[in-house]
């Protein structure tokens, strides 16, 4: 029986199933499987394979970390729903970690994380005292950045092409490992249940034609 707390972090916010298992500070297992679809079928068996290889079971876990996006809406929900179900059954906390926080983890601050959100937009967060996660046009974000600023994330290279003198940083570690390490750091204090971080509103059109006015 291990004495260090076992933390399992996982993420399906993009075209992958990714997970990392920590014992205290030690990374026991890590997986990254690229897939455009099939995450809902693959996630649980993949996690069970990792636990089995480490010689542990679900009941040995002390906490879960789960990537909450932003990213593919359905993909984010796959992991968040599984994490909430597991947390309920195991009686352990599930800690939500955004992909922006995970990308920034282990890198020097100040730092701007910019992830490609398609449609000419980026998910962005400045890791300084005032930075909040947001959706912005790539153009608008480029306009805010200045020479010498450190940027990371999938949209960073394109930004570096538009803004001279940006410092491009690689992620300090794989996404799922960062999710697990952040969850490990936060689990000591009460955490809200993990919820997806969409940043982008749902596609929903209000009815075009007005309803009739009813008169006596």
């Amino acid at each position, binding site marked *: 029986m291990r004495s260090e707390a076992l933390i399992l972090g996982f993420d399906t916010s993009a075209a992958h199933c990714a997970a990392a298992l920590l014992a205290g500070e030690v990374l026991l297992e890590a997986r990254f499987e690229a897939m455009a679809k099939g995450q809902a079928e693959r996630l649980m068996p993949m996690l*069970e394979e990792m636990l089995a290889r480490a010689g542990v079971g679900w009941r040995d876990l002390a906490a879960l970390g789960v990537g909450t996006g932003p990213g593919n809406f359905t993909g984010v929900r*796959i992991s968040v729903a599984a994490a909430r179900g597991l947390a*309920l059954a195991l009686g352990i906390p599930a800690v939500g970690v955004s992909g922006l926080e995970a990308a920034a983890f282990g890198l020097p601050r100040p730092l701007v994380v910019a992830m490609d959100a398609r449609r000419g937009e980026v998910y962005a967060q400045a890791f300084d005292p005032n930075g909040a996660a947001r959706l912005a046009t790539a153009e608008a974000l480029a306009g805010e950045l200045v020479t010498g600023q450190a940027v990371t994330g999938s949209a960073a290279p394109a930004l570096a092409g538009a803004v001279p003198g940006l410092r491009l940083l690689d992620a300090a570690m794989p996404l799922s490992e960062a999710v697990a390490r952040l969850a490990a750091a936060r689990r000591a204090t009460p955490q809200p249940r993990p919820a997806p971080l969409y940043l982008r509103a*749902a596609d929903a059109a209000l009815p075009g034609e007005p309803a009739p006015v009813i008169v006596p």
Partner: protein
Amino acid sequence: MTRTLTFLGLESSCDDTAAAVVRLSEGRAEVLASVVAGQTELHAPFGGVVPELAARAHVEKLDLCAEEALARAGLGLGDLDAVAVTAGPGLIGGVISGVMCAKGIAAGAGLPLIGVNHLAGHALTPRLTHGLAFPYLMLLVSGGHCQFLIVRGPASFSRIGGTIDDAPGEAFDKTAKLLALPQPGGPSVEAEAARGDARRFSFPRPLLDRPGCDMSFSGLKTALLRARDAVMQAGTLRAGDRADLCAGFQAAVADVLAEKSRRALLAYLAENPPTPAFAVAGGVAANRAVRAALETVSLAHGALFVAPPLALCTDNAAMIAWAGIERFRAGIDDATTLSARPRWPLDEAAPAMLGSGKRGAKA
């Protein structure tokens, strides 16, 4: 002495997030708790269910509903024998959220997981509420579905007819939207219809002139729009006209369902079932005019008429837990590789009636 079975059920295929605990003990089924968290207000401004909004709500409510159901039942996960979850058909974002939450609960608690067809949940409900024996005739009539089934066993259904386009519940919602009535349309149109004259407007009874049990409701929506526009003046509609439109529309739906039920009963009774019964489920079965028309037809043909209580007629998770128990007893088991299916006809042997292509038939 048969084994006692206690199941947790989860349902999230449309706009209700639901969890329930159902127990079968010594041949008696009991709903120990049934929690339904609706999303009516969320979708009301859009005049229909918005799939992405529904999925966003489900993923943050499913575990809360499950906890609430267990608490109301006074049970822990250790008291359960399995988890059952709606694996389709329905809005895929919600179905996937439910399936993943259920996989998490089942894995964490070390319980078997049973994937349930949402329509099987509705179709098997009369056995939960009334202990009906197989085979019985079933009409599923809701916002998303309309079909006649002969229910022969926990996983054996013969579809003998259904809608070739819209479901009646959808037509009720659309009618409410066109007539400035609140959603969901079923209750609000029914309340207006009670004040109206059903004979004033003549609405079509589609497909009554054709043999068989298939139905069509999309033309009825168009007919209602035309009739409304003919009596509207400068964007205004008189309250009395609205009541008459509702009454006429409801009468047309009830007439079509009653006549097609009569034909479905004849087909079913031709098989000489030992204890003939006709059961309804789905939100539209809550409409009193529809229900009365169906009951009349059923009794006229000597079949027991069964309408489960409204809370078990509309979407709920007790029916999913129960269908899980039925599947489990029949020896049908699913692993954690269980997949969510947006389209999943109950009767996979019947020719496709709705939808095709790589995603397969809807019904």
